[in-house]
């Protein structure tokens, strides 16, 4: 089996790779969003803490 036959998927390349491509894209986007959310949440917690420390001085 050669690679160009493999990628051609007997004429169904658009449908097969269109499906798997979107699955990968969705997984990557979701993982980055969850990581970003954690970063932002931790940053906010530190900002709130620093603001409260300033007030108490």
């Amino acid at each position, binding site marked *: 089996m050669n690679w160009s036959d493999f990628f051609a*998927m*007997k004429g169904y390349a658009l*449908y097969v790779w269109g499906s798997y491509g979107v*699955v990968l894209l969705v997984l990557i986007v*979701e993982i980055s969003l969850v990581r970003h959310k954690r970063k932002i949440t931790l940053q906010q917690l530190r900002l709130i*803490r620093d603001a409260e420390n300033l007030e108490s001085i």
Partner: protein
Amino acid sequence: MAINWFKYSAPSSFYGLAGKMIPWFAWPAAVLFCMGMYIGFFVAPTDAVQSEAYRIIFVHVPASILSMFIYLVMAGYAALGLIFNTRLSSMMATALAPTGALFAVISLWTGALWGKPMWGAWWVWDARLTSELILLFLYLGFIALQSSIEDPRRADRAGALLAIVGSVNVPIIYFSVQWWNTLHQGSTVKLSGTSMHIAMQQAMFSMLAAMWLYAIAISLSRVRSIILERERNTHWVAELAEVKQ
């Protein structure tokens, strides 16, 4: 050994536990995903009727199963939160919704890309497809409703009602291919067994296990941020190493 399970229903202890559990789900998910892809593309034979297009099944079926299953788990957690007023259950429901919605999107998207070459149409208003679309709208409705209510406890209760009422849709999706005369084919995998080729089964079940473990890992990561956000005024959050630095 007696384990105090209720200990972990407190957000403060669950936060740490979830953090420890994530890699145990994430790594097996990644390995099973690669295994499923390998078997699905290099071991499983070409289908006699659908040629190579059938390979969409390895993502379409697991994603569809999970979109329904996650909905039931989400509704279950939401109901627990509503009945017993447990905060963590409601947070879990909130954390599961985006993942369930994304699986519903994958299900519909791969379904459209499979429908076009096999049925000649990207979309038909068939019972199976329409009820799955309603499932996506239920997820989006749940997310929108919760984010539109400022008080998190009220948002939990309103979301829980929507989730519980909407769970009627799940059996409708599942049995739609039997109840109505639909274009969508019947279940390939039944409790009584399957007619699938063994390599095709292996690929599909690896992908199902991979997506299942992935869903657990990603929801646990998401719930950790939700816990921090909702418990931000507590002492234990302020004392966390990742917050203190």
